[in-house]
């Protein structure tokens, strides 16, 4: 059914799900929600499974005219949200009806917010996913960010009887200084003192920060003396910290499939959500951890989402 008409699109609002997996060998990157935790939380609060398509809202949010009955939730960055002029809290589900006007403002803290509706945003499945990959005009709403006048549909689904709120301790904090946990490799052997520099310096997020990658500025990371300037191009996974010859690190993200420079370390998958909320000017540090610790964090995070699911069901 018809759900929203876009009155103002915001700075970049796209349809995303958890990503398009299994096609990277063809050069198709996963795309998907950059802050996967907030994305899944929005879906659970809206009474969905974790992977229904939702809106990823970057920096300046959209203004939407509501066209149908619905049940929605907004998570992620802290944004001013108003329904018919009245402020709405984030991380809590709410009802909407035809004629309502949902205005999502500018990010006050963090950068990306997620708006999920019961039933999910209804766009065609392309190669197994509803995520938008704008560089190839693939998936999502016509392969592009939303524009004024677009009409979005939602899938079937009856609104739950009660609204639900996320337990406060499950809401991730949004500090302006973040610490990303990372595992050395795959090419940590091409670095010597570079490893100590990366794990002991503060880096600034530059304006060149998007869904492909985040370029950082700070203490330059040198390659080892005998190391080659570049490596034979190989696929990159999200979180890879690539060091080009200039020495300024780049965190590779979800719309990147290959890289030709050595990757000194890889940010753990659980911390990509933190990158998603970092904006130009924010400060990033890297903390070295082991694979075992990373897997423990991965399991813990899964348990947080399980707790949220239970909280929603028992609301």
């Amino acid at each position: 059914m018809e759900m929203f008409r876009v009155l103002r699109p915001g700075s970049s609002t796209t349809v995303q799900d958890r990503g398009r997996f299994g096609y990277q060998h063809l050069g198709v990157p996963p795309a998907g929600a950059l802050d996967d935790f907030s994305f899944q939380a929005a879906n659970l609060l809206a009474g969905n499974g974790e992977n229904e398509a939702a809106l990823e809202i970057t920096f300046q949010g959209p203004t939407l005219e509501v066209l149908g009955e619905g049940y929605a939730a907004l998570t992620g960055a802290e944004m001013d949200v108003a329904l018919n002029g009245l402020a709405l809290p984030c991380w809590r589900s709410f009802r909407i009806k035809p004629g309502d006007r949902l205005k999502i403002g500018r990010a006050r803290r963090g950068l990306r917010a997620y708006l999920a509706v019961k039933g999910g945003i209804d766009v065609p499945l392309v190669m197994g996913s509803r995520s938008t990959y704008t560089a190839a005009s693939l998936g999502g709403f016509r392969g592009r960010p939303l524009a004024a006048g677009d009409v979005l549909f939602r899938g079937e689904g009856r609104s739950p009887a009660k609204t639900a709120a996320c337990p406060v301790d499950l809401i991730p904090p949004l500090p302006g200084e973040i610490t990303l946990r990372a595992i050395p490799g795959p090419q940590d052997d091409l670095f010597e003192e570079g490893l100590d520099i990366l794990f002991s310096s503060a880096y600034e997020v530059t304006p060149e920060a998007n869904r492909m990658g985040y370029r950082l500025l700070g203490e330059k990371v040198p390659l080892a003396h005998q190391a080659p300037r570049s490596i034979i191009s190989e696929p990159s996974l999200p979180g890879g910290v690539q060091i080009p010859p200039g020495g300024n690190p780049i965190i590779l993200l979800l719309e990147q499939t290959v890289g030709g420079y050595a990757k000194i370390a890889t940010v753990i998958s659980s911390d990509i959500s933190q990158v998603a909320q970092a904006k130009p000017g924010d400060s990033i540090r890297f903390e070295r951890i082991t694979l075992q610790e990373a897997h423990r964090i991965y399991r813990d995070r899964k348990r947080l989402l399980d707790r949220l699911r239970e909280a929603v069901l028992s609301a």
Partner: protein
Amino acid sequence: MKRVPWTEKGPVFRLAGDRGLLIEFGDAIDPEINDRVRALARLLEKETPEGVAEWIATYRSLIVVYDPLQTGADRVKEAVLRLLLKMPDLVLPAPETVMIPVCYGGELGPDLKFVAEHNGLDPAEVMKLHCEPVYRIYMLGFTPGFPFLGGLSERLVTPRLTSPRLSVPAGSVGIANDQTGIYPIASPGGWRLIGRTPLRLFDPGRANPVLFKAGDLLKFVPIPRDEFDRLAVREGSHGDV
């Protein structure tokens, strides 16, 4: 059909975050090393270890992506080492050869003259040298379906543009240093464009969204402009011209 030569030296395993394991068979762009990559991909396809979600083959390595809730890097490594024991008995099917029609020069290949002059050749020689080899597709990436090809003639090596074009039309065939490739979708790019194919290399609506896969062979076939236009209409790619 051929057998992959046995090597005493095992691969190098490298951690790629908390979900990835990189398996490296050598440090060179070399058909024999690439055959080992193809062989492991084939073995993974036949007997996918528990918890392995996908794998991506490259020039000389393969990345395995796994689910940390189901398995771990050590278990994936053990499973890969067990699979590699089967490599001497594996018979790799002959790679498919994909023919790509290309109209060289003119407005479809605006840098053909530059490539010719840079290498002291005339445009017809560039075309001939570019069509002669059977290229190996080592990897797909950069944009959906972009093939990284091995086998460009040393006489065609040409540096990239100093300032990349903001938009290169889909189907453009280019040269960058010792590499040649095809842009499957319109994208920014700095390769020297010598021609264009009317084929739609990437179409997400097709059962096979990309016309070829890593490990296949590729041959360029020169076609005249009227043939290009005819095929472009058939392919529905004429709107891109």
